[in-house]
């Protein structure tokens, strides 16, 4: 057994298997407003992850008993397409997607001004089209942009990125191979000002490693934020032919 593990090597000439350094995120592509029927939508590629997020609402709550008199409720559905992984995934909700829906909702809810829309619901749907480790972070990033696109008032954006540990080295944004055979995976979501709204971990890290990994994931979040912001500004400049003035980003 030990021999098998020893044979796996995550680094080649100091670089990772996909050519990244230890503290680099995967290339990210964000497209805003990809769905005509949704009030807000967003398509995100983080490396080989492909997710799409759609936001509907605020709208009337069905079923009625879920309605809250003083605020809007937020529903978040994380779903993996059956073709998103190598071995066909049995479609439909399961234990994992339930959990991810809950933690992702709780990652976004603190910034949404739900009190503006009493007795209504904001529905967020996230579909994973292709998975390659870190789909929850990609889903949260897509959902955050889609919420902004839907014109929903928020105190800030939410950005998400993971850090992990493979071969006794801390790495940013693990990909599938590193997640499957690694020692730890720690997804983080936060506001650009550094308020953490999601922090999960599996595997083992020492206290010092945890501290470093958290710093690393937060740095990743900030990088993601810049890309999210840019994608929203770019969508606008498509509407308008003249160049768009940029405002200073939140420190």
């Amino acid at each position, binding site marked *: 057994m030990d021999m098998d593990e020893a044979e796996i090597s995550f680094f080649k000439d100091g670089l990772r298997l996909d050519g990244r350094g230890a503290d680099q995120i995967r290339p990210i592509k964000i497209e805003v407003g990809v769905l005509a029927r949704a009030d807000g939508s967003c398509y995100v590629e983080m490396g080989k992850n492909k997710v799409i997020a759609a936001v509907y609402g605020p709208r009337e709550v069905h079923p009625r008993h879920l309605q809250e008199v003083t605020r809007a409720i937020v529903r978040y559905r994380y779903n993996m397409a059956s073709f998103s992984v190598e071995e066909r995934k049995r479609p439909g909700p399961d234990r994992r997607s339930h959990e991810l829906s809950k933690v992702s909702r709780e990652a976004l809810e603190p910034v949404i*001004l739900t009190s503006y829309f009493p*007795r209504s619901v904001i529905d967020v749907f996230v579909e994973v089209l292709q998975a390659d480790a870190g789909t929850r972070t990609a889903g949260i990033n897509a959902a955050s942009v889609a919420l902004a*696109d*839907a*014109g929903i008032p928020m105190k800030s954006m939410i950005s998400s990125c993971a850090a992990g540990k493979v071969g006794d080295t801390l790495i940013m944004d693990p990909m599938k191979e590193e997640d499957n055979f690694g020692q730890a995976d720690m997804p983080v979501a936060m506001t650009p000002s550094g308020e953490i709204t999601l922090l999960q971990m599996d595997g083992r890290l020492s206290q010092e490693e945890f501290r470093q990994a958290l710093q690393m994931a937060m740095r990743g979040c900030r990088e993601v934020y810049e890309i999210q912001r840019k994608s929203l500004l770019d969508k606008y400049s498509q509407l308008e032919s003249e160049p768009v003035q940029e*405002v200073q980003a939140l420190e």
Partner: protein
Amino acid sequence: MDRKVVVPGDLLSEDAKRSGEGTFVKDGKVYSLLYGLANYKDKINVIPLAGKYVPAPGDNVIGVIKDITFSNWIVDINSPYDGLLHISEFPKRIEAEEMSKYLRMGSSIMTRVKDVDPTMKVELTLNDRKLGSIRTGRVIEISHTRVPRLIGKGGSMISMLKKEMNCNIFVGQNGMIWISGGEEEMDLALKTILLIEKEAHTNGLTDRIVEFLKSEKGARS
């Protein structure tokens, strides 16, 4: 004019007193709540690029009757919240049994928001001469975020349109617009309003619309 695209959480000003619509104050600084255009005047307002209409008292809106209850018409006003038009808000006295004679399901009405309570119960009224059931003309729908541009500063855009088109136009704050006039005039008005919606975020719009109308009319005569 000083305008910028902002996303939620962008820092707009260090001066808390300049906080306007679509902004919030944290630690004495003003931040944006929305993805939209920040307008720098005395106050900083952020105008959203999208979003749902939320009724406010005094708004003129156009709605469609979607249900009739014992003493209320329930009106779809293109919002997360339905409007309630009570029988007593109809311009003349009618009996509850005869409600569907006056306004049936599917009827379009021009109405006004009379009151909105904290639980978002929206009360409507028809008690005004310019309000009432829609029988002629056309109703079109644009995003409610574009309505202020369609009306223009102090109603400049809409009064120009009414004059140039020789049409009757009723603009609902919920983005529903009623046009009534000759067929050709309505076609042109419709085209113009859709153009305004498309270019709502650009500067000097009124002038460009005047130009557009001139060329359209020139082509016709």
